[in-house]
C-alpha cells in the first residue's frame, strides 16, 4: 500500500529529517565516517534501501523510521546525516 504511492521521477534529494511523515524515500547516501554513521549502516540504513518516517515523538524528537521491515528510533541530529530521494 505504501509502496504504490512512491512518486517516480521527482529527483530532489533531502535529508531524512525533511521527509514528510508517511512518505517513502530511498536512501542515496549516509554522510560521515564516525561511530554513528557506522552504526546506522550496520542497522541496515545503507544507500538503496527504502525508508519511511513513521512518526515523531511528542516533543518533536526523536523520530521513528521504518527500514527493512522494522522500526528504528533516531534523533534528528542522526537523521540529518541520511540523504533520501522520494
Amino acid at each position, binding site marked *: *500500500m*505504501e*509502496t504504490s504511492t512512491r512518486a517516480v521521477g521527482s529527483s530532489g534529494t533531502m535529508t531524512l529529517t525533511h521527509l514528510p511523515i508517511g512518505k517513502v524515500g530511498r536512501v542515496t*547516501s549516509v554522510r560521515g*565516517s564516525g*561511530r*554513528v554513521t*557506522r*552504526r*546506522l*549502516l*550496520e*542497522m*541496515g540504513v*545503507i*544507500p538503496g534501501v527504502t525508508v519511511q518516517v*513513521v*512518526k515523531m*515523538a*511528542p*516533543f*518533536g*524528537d*526523536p523520530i*521513528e523510521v521504518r527500514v*527493512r*521491515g*522494522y*522500526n*528504528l*528510533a*533516531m*534523533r534528528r*541530529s*542522526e537523521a540529518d546525516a541520511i540523504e533520501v530521494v522520494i
Partner: protein
Amino acid sequence: MASSARKKQITIALAGNPNAGKTTLFNSLTGLRQKVANYPGVTVERKEGPWQLNGSSADLIDLPGLYSLEATSLDEQIASQVITGEQAGIPKPDVVVAVVDATNLERNLYLVTQLFEFGIPVVVALTMINIFEKQGHTIDVEMLSAMLKTPVVRVNARSGRGRKELAEKVHDLIGTTPETPYLEELPADVEDPRHAKIFARYQFISNAVQESVWHNDAKSHRLSDKIDKVLTHKVFGLAILVLILLLVFQTIFSWASLPMDLLEKGFGAIGDAVKASMPPGILADLLSDGIIAGVGGVVVFLPQILLLFLFISLLEDSGYMARAAFLMDKLMSRVGLHGKAFLPLISSFACAIPGIMATRTIESRRDRFATILIAPFMSCSARLPVYTLMIATFFAGRTVFGFLSMGAVLMLAMYALGILVAVAVAAILKRTLLKAPPPPFLMELPPYRLPNLRTVLQNMLTRAWLFLKRAGTVILAISIILWALMYFPRGSQQTAVSDQQAAAEQPTNDNQAASEQLKNSFAGKLGHLIEPAIRPLGFDWKIGIALISSFAAREVLVSTLSIIYNVGKDEDAQSQTLVQAVKDAKTDDGRPAWTPLTALTLMVFFVLAMQCMSTIAVVRRETNSWRWPIFMLSYMTAIAYIGAFITYQGGKALGFG
C-alpha cells in the same frame, strides 16, 4: 553417560539481536540449570547452562544481545572475545547458534554474516516464524539455508519446537568452516572504503532473502503499529505513560505492604527466638540485634523490590520500555541523559536498587553512571517513615492557605526538591566528570508482544537473587559495624540487664537501659563528636546518633529515635508515644531538641543524603569499583549538609524555629 562426559567438552555459543527470542530459547534448551554470573571485571551478564546434544552434554553460553560484532560497545567487545576464544575461562565455541527473528530477517542476518567471518560454523535458529506466517508471509527455509550456505532450523522458543533438529544440526557442524563468498569481491563504488564490507554483507543478505521469502504486502498494517499509534501518541501516549506509572506505584505500595509487615514481624520473632534460645551475651546480641535485625531491615524491602523487578521485566518484555524511552528522550536529553534513563529513575521513587540495576540497558557508560549517580535523589519508600514521623509530630492538622494540608504540601515539596537537585547534578556531571560527546540514540522499537510469563518471572527472580548475592556481603558487614558501634563499650548496668532476673523487669527499665547503653556507646560518642558539625543544622548529638544509625537504611531513624527517647524500639512512625517523646525531647541544656524548623531541616537532609547501605553495595557492583559509591556518598552528604544548613539558617533568619 560416564564415557561421553570424558570426551572433550563441547562449547556452544548463543548469539542474536536483542528481542530475537534468545533468552526464551536459552531457557528452553537449558531448563532451570543455568548459572548467571558476570564476566570478570565488567557488569556484562554471563549466562551458561548444559544442553543435551545427541547424548553428550554441551556447555551453552548465552552471549549478550547485540546488533553487531564491531566491538564498539562493551557487550560487543565481550561477545567477540568469547567467539574468538579470548575470554578467559571459556573455550573457543565449537558452533554458534544464531537466533534470528523471521519477522526482522535482514537486520538479524547481518550478525550472522559477521559470525561467518569469525570462521566458526553457524546454525541459524529461526524464531517468530509463527508470527511471520500469521502475517501472511511465507519463507522457504531450505532455500534460505542454501543461499546462506549454512543450516537454518525453524524453532519456536516458546513451545520448544525444533529443539531436536537444532541439536542435530549443531552436532553435525562441529569441526566445519563457514563460507564467506560475498567477501571475495567487495563493492568498489563506496565513499568510505571502510564501509565496503557492510555493503557486501547486506547485498548478500538481500539476495538470500529475495530468493527465499515472499512478502504479503496487503497485511502490512500490523496490530503492533495500531497499538503504537495510541501508545506513542502526542497526547494519549504521555497520558498513558503517566497512568501506567501510577498503576505500578499503586500496586507496589498496596501489594507490598502486607508481606513487608510480615517480614518485619518475622525477623523480629526470629531475633527474639535466637536471643531466647542462646545464653545471653555478645554472641546472642550480635546474631539477633546485629545480623538478623540488620539484614532483616534490608530484606523487608524485598517484596517491593521484587514487584518493581516484575514490572520492569513486564515493560521490557512487552516492548513498552523502548517506547517510554522514545517518548521521554527529548526531555531527558535536556539534562544530557538518554531516554532510557527515564524508567530507571522513575522506579527509584519506589526503591533505587531496581532502578540502578535497570540502567544496564543504557549503552553509554557515562550516561549510565550519570543516571546511577542521581537515582538516589528520587524520594524512595524508605524515606516515607522519616517524613511521616516529622509531619505527624510537628505539622499534623496544620494547613497552608487555609485548605491545603501542610503535610501533603511538605511531602510534595520533598519529592520536588529531590528531582530538582537530581536534574542540576546530572547537568553538572555531564558537563564535567562524565563529559562525552552524545552517544548515538539509535534504538530499535520492537513490535509489541504479549509478555511470556516464564521469561518475566525468571527475569525477576534472577535479578532479585543477584541483588541479594552481590549486596549481601556488604550489607552484612555494614550491619555488623553499625551494631558494634552501638553495642560497645558495654556500660556497667548492662550486666544487671542480662541477668536472669532481667526478663522479669519492667519494660520501661529495659527501655531506659537500652537508651543509656546507646548513649554511652561508640555511636553515642560519635554523636558527640559530630555535634559541632551538625549544630548549625539544629541537630543535637542524639539526633546525630540517629543520623549515623540510619546509614543502614533511612527508616532506621525511626527505631533509633525510639530507643534514644526511651520508648522501646518497636514504635512506628505514627505512634503517639513516639510523637510525644520527640516533642518532649530536650537537649542537654534543657531546651527543646526539636522545633518544626529542625524537623523540616531533617527532612531536607534525608531527601539529599545517601543514607542507604544497600544502594552503596549495588552501586559498587554495578560500577565495579569502590570509587563511584564513595564519590556518591561524599557528594550526596555534602549536598545534604548544604541543603540542611541553608534550610535551618535561612529559616532562623526568617524568624522561624
